[in-house]
């Protein structure tokens, strides 16, 4: 397809692609861009986008945004000097090499990694499949400063590495990209914090690739707190090695439309993934999480526990899928999706799926959607709690099962604070 017959909706992306300098990666990026153009935006007929329409995103004309220094309001408190700050996909700040608590963690840009002689094929991949393949390709084509984080073999840094992905500017689009590689036997914690304000519409198309080496343990704490006019599409593609453990704690709290595809491939015997999530679709927010685990080897284990709360005109979608492939005997896959509707206009669609091609496995899944228990609500009120206090207590209790597992205190506290603040606002106006 040439530029002359390009659909109007894709023109801004073509313009952004043509104005960027790609250097050594031009070929890979060019192919990725053509892949995006051929695919275009998904239509509602596309099963993976059944409940999430991108019409509004498609109609906007976003432009590639330069780095603008973020205001302190959107710069969340995190240990200065021990964090990576990425604004509109460009690296603004990185920790110095001498941080004792981050010992064993190496942070480079894609350009530095290429200069160090690493092959492009390992650094700038486009995943295949899934509803967000086209956007992952777009990311590969347009990402400005991909960040490569390596945890050295057997390294056990005592502190968590904070990566702030900030969006700023008017009608801006950005394509933040991270590659995280946990070396054999390492153990590390990573906080990924998406943030932005409500001042303008923006499009953030983010891609995160994780490679967990044998016997490694990686805990990822993801907080999505974009402004309520931001469109976010994020793909997280993780490959978990032999006896390695990947844990993701996900708090989806922001955005206008936010779509997350979280894929974990349990690629070698004994690999395990625990994926915990909480989403809060309040206001007019639309949140869509597609979580997929592939069991590709024997003795692999997965636990997916996502809890959703929707209020006002909020809408949430959860699609969980576990695939136990042929030969992945003695594997365990558990999936839980629990959902709470706080007000009558809210909606949650949940679809847990299991596909099993091995005969000696333990699998379970369950999904529920309901409202606060009127008997519990009355009980609390009869003890003197006012209605909003009682509803807030019961909603926090609902989220507690997932929140209590978020074992990084600073992260858990931040999520609690946002949740409390939002619940207070939701419950101010009784249903």
């Amino acid at each position, binding site marked *: 397809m040439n530029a002359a017959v390009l659909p109007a909706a894709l023109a801004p992306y073509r313009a952004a692609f043509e104005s960027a300098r790609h250097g050594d990666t031009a070929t890979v990026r060019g192919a990725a861009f053509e892949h995006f153009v051929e695919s275009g935006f998904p239509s509602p007929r596309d099963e993976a986008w059944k409940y999430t329409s991108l019409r509004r995103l498609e109609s906007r004309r976003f432009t590639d945004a330069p780095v603008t220094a973020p205001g302190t309001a959107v710069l969340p408190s995190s240990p200065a000097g021990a964090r990576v700050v990425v604004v509109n996909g460009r690296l603004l700040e990185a920790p110095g090499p001498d941080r004792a608590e981050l010992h064993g963690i190496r942070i480079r840009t894609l350009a530095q990694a290429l200069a160090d002689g690493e092959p492009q094929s390992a650094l700038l991949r486009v995943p295949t499949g899934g509803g967000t393949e086209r956007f992952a390709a777009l990311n590969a084509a347009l990402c400005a400063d991909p960040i490569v984080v390596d945890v050295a073999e057997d390294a056990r840094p005592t502190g968590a590495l904070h990566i702030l992905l900030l969006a700023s500017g008017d009608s801006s689009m950005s394509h933040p990209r991270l590659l995280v590689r946990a070396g054999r036997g390492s153990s590390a914690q990573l906080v990924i914090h998406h943030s932005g304000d409500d001042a303008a519409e923006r499009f953030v198309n983010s891609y995160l690739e994780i490679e967990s080496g044998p016997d490694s343990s990686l805990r990822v704490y993801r907080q999505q707190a974009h402004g309520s006019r931001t469109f976010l599409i994020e793909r997280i593609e993780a490959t978990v090695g032999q006896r390695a453990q990947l844990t993701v704690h996900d708090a989806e709290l922001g955005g206008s439309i936010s779509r997350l595809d979280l894929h974990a491939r349990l690629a070698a015997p004994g690999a395990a993934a625990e994926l915990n999530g909480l989403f809060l679709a309040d206001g007019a927010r639309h949140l869509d999480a597609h979580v997929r685990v592939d069991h590709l080897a024997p003795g692999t284990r997965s636990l997916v526990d996502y809890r959703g709360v929707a209020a006002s005109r909020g809408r949430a979608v959860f699609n969980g899928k576990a695939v136990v492939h042929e030969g992945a005997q003695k594997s365990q896959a558990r999936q839980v999706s629990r959902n709470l509707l706080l007000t009558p206009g809210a909606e949650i669609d949940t679809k847990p799926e299991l596909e099993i091609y091995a005969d000696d496995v333990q699998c379970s899944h369950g999904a529920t959607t309901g409202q606060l228990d009127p*008997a*519990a609500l*009355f*009980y609390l009120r009869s003890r*003197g*709690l006012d209605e909003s206090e009682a509803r807030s*207590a*019961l909603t926090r209790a609902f989220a*507690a099962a997932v929140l209590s597992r978020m074992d990084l205190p600073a992260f858990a506290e931040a999520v609690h604070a946002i949740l409390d603040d939002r619940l207070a606002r939701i419950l101010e106006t009784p249903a």
Partner: protein
Amino acid sequence: MLKIRDLHARIGDREILTGLDLEVGAGEVHAIMGPNGSGKSTLASVLAGRDGVEVTRGTVEYLGRDLLAMEPEDRARAGVFLAFQYPVEIPGVNNAYLLKAGLNAVRRQRGEAELDAFDFLALIRDKMKLMQMDESFLNRGVNEGFSGGEKKRNEILQMAVLEPKLALLDETDSGLDIDALRVVASGVNGMRSPERAIVMVTHYQRLLDYIEPDVVHVLSGGRILKSGDRTLALELEQRGYDWVRAEAGAA
């Protein structure tokens, strides 16, 4: 303290209370007895303000106020307490949180300062000892995994902490073994005071061996058919309820 006049209430299409009159003064302990389906629990629900029961006629006056116009939490703050027949389990909401939030809501209403964590713990420890409850209960979810007896003790603990003016006990004796009944009864007896009224709703007279009422009422068909002193309860125990109904029918 409590004046109920000609109270009619229904659940769905079913008329449950059909003209109930009751007056309870400060310092008094009343027992309301009656067969299953007579409207005992519905009466307790109406007084506590539970949704789903519709009052179609009559008035309920509490300390000079229109009780039926008050939200459940406002009733609690004004000193009305219902010990539930079936206390609900609320995993994830901590017992201590509920006790403290409830107590401070009541204290604000009374114009008293809220208790800080230290004073609250000191107060709660005393009351828990009284109810023979282990402190570990504080950090568990409200009634979560409690046995029947533990739930009832927890209700009386809440009552002891909130110090209501009007305590309603809905079938508090049901499901209790004799030891638990003694603990619960001594908790309730410890709350008897000239400023406080207690109304017990019960199916059996057994509870009245432990908590002696000043007045006993027979509730049947949604109305109080007969009132008397303690001896009425003993008579009901021996003769059942039919004779009261026959008497009322003849009158």
